[in-house]
């Protein structure tokens, strides 16, 4: 046995700066991707627009994906039905928005600005409540059985999608954004779309809130400990199952919120939107490292940026580029950008 620690073995290059760079490598991927895209797009104002669009998309995906990754980390549950909460949140939010806008501004063509916040809250409440039921009925009986989890949550997704058709009809619902969130702020020759700015701010706020909750509170400590070693947390007398239900509910509510944000972004909602977004969400969760919130955030930004840059440069490869990104990152770090230490 060599007494030399593994790190300083090997090359003699372990300069403190190199070490710090290596530790920061996952975080650096985002600015590196942005810088690489600058010469590729060739036009700084287009680059700003694309970068903001990418960040906005990334934030929205993060809002939807964060719950999934925590649920997996904490309880080893992979919820394929997560997309159902996105769709349901979007539909509940849309109903509330259309109803409130009708009350506040009869005869208006677009949604009313004041209707958005109540709609988001309503969507989160409904999807959170559904999360309680989903966890009890669908997920609890299949703890620890990955195969059955995948199958049964998939079944839940199918049923949820069909129920949306039952209650809201088979047609897609248009969601015209309020005028205040339409159009762009123009600085010189750089146009910054308002809604994207709004999405970035909201997403960043959620990330910061989540980060503070996880890093600074006792519940956050327990969640992080549970992700790392659930049995030990239980042995210390905490009811990890209850914690898990809480995380599941919050994750579902965030998915619902993400659904509303995404619906307003696209200005139209369909019952299959959850399933479509799940593809991106899975890529994000894999890139970030299953169970890691920070990784999920980085992954979401990478995916959002990549999708927008390639959408501009080579439109035909927009989704393919994300697969490529995933393969690249898995080759570099098979466990994702920020792997979670599991027992």
């Amino acid at each position, binding site marked *: 046995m060599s007494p030399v620690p593994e790190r300083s073995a090997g090359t003699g290059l372990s300069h403190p700066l190199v070490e710090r760079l290596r530790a920061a490598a996952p975080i650096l991927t985002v600015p590196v991707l942005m810088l690489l895209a600058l010469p590729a797009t060739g036009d700084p104002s287009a680059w700003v627009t694309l970068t903001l669009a990418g960040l906005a998309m990334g934030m929205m995906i993060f809002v939807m994906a964060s719950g999934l990754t925590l649920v997996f980390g904490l309880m080893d549950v992979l919820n394929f039905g997560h997309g159902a909460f996105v769709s349901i949140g979007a539909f509940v939010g849309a109903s509330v928005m259309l109803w409130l806008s009708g009350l506040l501004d009869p005869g208006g063509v677009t949604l009313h600005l004041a209707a958005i916040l109540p709609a988001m809250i309503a969507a989160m409440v409904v999807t959170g409540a559904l999360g309680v039921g989903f966890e009890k009925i669908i997920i609890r009986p299949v703890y620890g059985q990955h195969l059955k989890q995948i199958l049964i949550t998939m*079944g839940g997704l199918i049923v949820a999608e069909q129920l949306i058709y039952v209650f809201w009809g088979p047609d897609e619902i248009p969601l015209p954004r309020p005028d205040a969130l339409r159009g762009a702020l123009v600085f010189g020759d750089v146009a910054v779309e308002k809604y994207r700015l709004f999405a970035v701010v909201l997403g960043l706020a959620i990330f910061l809130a989540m980060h503070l909750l996880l890093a600074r509170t006792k519940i956050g400590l327990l969640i992080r400990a549970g992700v790392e070693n659930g049995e030990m947390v239980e042995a210390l007398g905490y009811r990890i199952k209850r914690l898990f239900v809480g995380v599941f509910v919050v994750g579902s509510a965030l998915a619902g919120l993400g659904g509303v944000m995404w619906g307003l972004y696209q200005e139209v909602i369909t019952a299959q939107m959850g399933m479509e977004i799940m593809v991106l969400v899975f890529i994000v969760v894999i890139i970030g490292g299953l169970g890691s919130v920070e990784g999920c955030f980085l992954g979401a930004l990478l995916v959002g940026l990549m999708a927008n840059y390639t959408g501009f440069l080579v439109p035909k490869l927009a*989704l393919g580029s994300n697969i490529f990104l995933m*393969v690249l990152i898995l080759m570099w770090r098979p466990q994702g950008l920020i792997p979670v230490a599991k027992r």
Partner: protein
Amino acid sequence: MVRWLLSGDYPRGLALNLGIAAIVLALLFAPFLFPGTRALNTAATICIFIVLVASYDLLLGYTGIVSFAHTMFYGIGAYGVAILLQRYGASWGAVFAGLGFGLAVSVLLAFVIGLFSLRVKAIFFAMVTLAVASAFAILASQLSGLTGGEDGLTYRVPRMLTPAFRLMDEQLLGVTMNGRIIAYYLVFVVSAVAFLVMMRIVNSPFGRVLASIRENAFRAEALGVRTVVYRSLASCLAAGFATLAGALMALWLRYTGPDVTLSFTIMVDILLMVVIGGMGTMYGAIVGAAAFILAQNYLKDLMGHMAEATAGIPVLPDLLHPDRWLLWLGLLFILSVYFFPTGIVGRLRKSRQA
């Protein structure tokens, strides 16, 4: 002879024997028993889906891998045949070239996906395949020069398989012996052979190794089985059979488009058929595919009548709307994962043993 054909793996159980026999006989004599285009179409779809579902069962039921890219391989087979038939005219050469090309692409793709995702964690595979399959579906609809985009491809098949071709002038048992009958029997025979080959595979030592990986991958590894190699092989094999099914579908439908080959709905259908029929039993594919496709084609009619009958009650007619049949099958799916994890076939077998 029968034993050799079925590789010694009988359905087991009286009800199951009779049921399987009834389905197979009905399919064998379908053109004579159930005249009409719609019935023949249903029968051919069942044959093709039996192969598709059985090949998926090879992955899910026998090896314990969840893949969401199965329709991608199915689509590759269909598009391979479709593109070559459209480009180079209706010849058998184009059909076989398309099939061969499709098989090569599928197996290679399955191998690459397996290489990347089967090593890391089995659960990655489900997510990676989902992502790759959806990217492929989008790619197929965007490369409209090659694939016809959203509209798909319509093409002519070899003349022997068209309704204009007459095998004999007289009718046989009241059925005109035209090229569609030949096409149906081509589908039937190829499907039957593919199914029996898969039976042979799962009952070979190779199949036992797959099952051992499903039961306990860690232990299999400890016994010296290179699980990654076997998982990748199973995934390539399943991809190959799915490609074959796709090629048959392309020949039968004379049309290939994203909705009939690549859509996620079909993936969900396959999943439902495997689970409801019975995972890990090849016969589950027969029962599942037959039950599901019959339901798909005829349950809608029934639900339409029920919706009309309940027209006065609030939510009920919406729940019974013919387009909502997937809702009921979805519920059935969840219930069967809970209570009958081995599906209809496993259930019938168990009741015999008890």
